[in-house]
């Protein structure tokens, strides 16, 4: 059923970027695209179990997002995985640096993935970076 491949790389830990990435991931995944998300750098800490739900706002829009009823980005990533079969991978390097393992992360995340494998999987995909 997958008509196209979408690869999303997230390095930012800021709310606006996580929100936009989550929107692309969830809508892409439920619209028949094969979606792969790669979480690295500042993004990963938000997916550690028990992490504070809200990421820091980058600008005024991020502050506004908090006051409106926009779906939280973590809900959207979970729905991308559950409803659209998106694969959300923590970067193995980021896991090592943060000192976290697969069991410490949100349950809808896959096993940590290395960059070599991610790049091989992303071949021929549309790549979005946040």
């Amino acid at each position, binding site marked *: 059923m997958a008509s196209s491949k979408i690869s999303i790389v997230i390095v930012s830990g800021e709310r606006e970027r996580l929100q936009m990435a989550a929107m692309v991931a969830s809508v892409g995944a439920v619209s028949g695209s094969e979606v792969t998300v790669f979480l690295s750098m500042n993004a990963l800490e938000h997916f550690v179990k028990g992490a504070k739900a809200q990421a820091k706002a980058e600008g005024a829009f991020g502050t506004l997002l908090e006051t409106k009823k*926009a779906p939280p980005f973590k809900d959207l990533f979970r729905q991308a995985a559950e409803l659209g079969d998106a694969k959300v991978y923590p970067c193995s390097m980021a896991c090592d640096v943060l000192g976290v393992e697969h069991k410490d992360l949100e349950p809808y995340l896959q096993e940590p993935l290395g960059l070599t494998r991610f790049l091989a999987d992303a071949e021929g995909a549309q790549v979005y970076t946040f």
Partner: protein
Amino acid sequence: MAQKHIVDARGSFCPGPLMELIAQLKSAAVGDEFEVLSTDKGSVNDIPEWVNKVGHAYVGTTEADGVWHVTIRKMK
């Protein structure tokens, strides 16, 4: 017998209404209708777009007192 379901997504922003619809669609029977209540204008355009793309049927949209009612039918 086809049922009609109401998805009350008033107050939620894109893509909240669409995702709420999809979550409920999963467990419904083919032929069932869904009426999504939304105050988000973007979703009112997005839902028919999604429905056509994935192969369900778009029935129609009405608006009353700032709330859009987008109706679709599950086809598969």
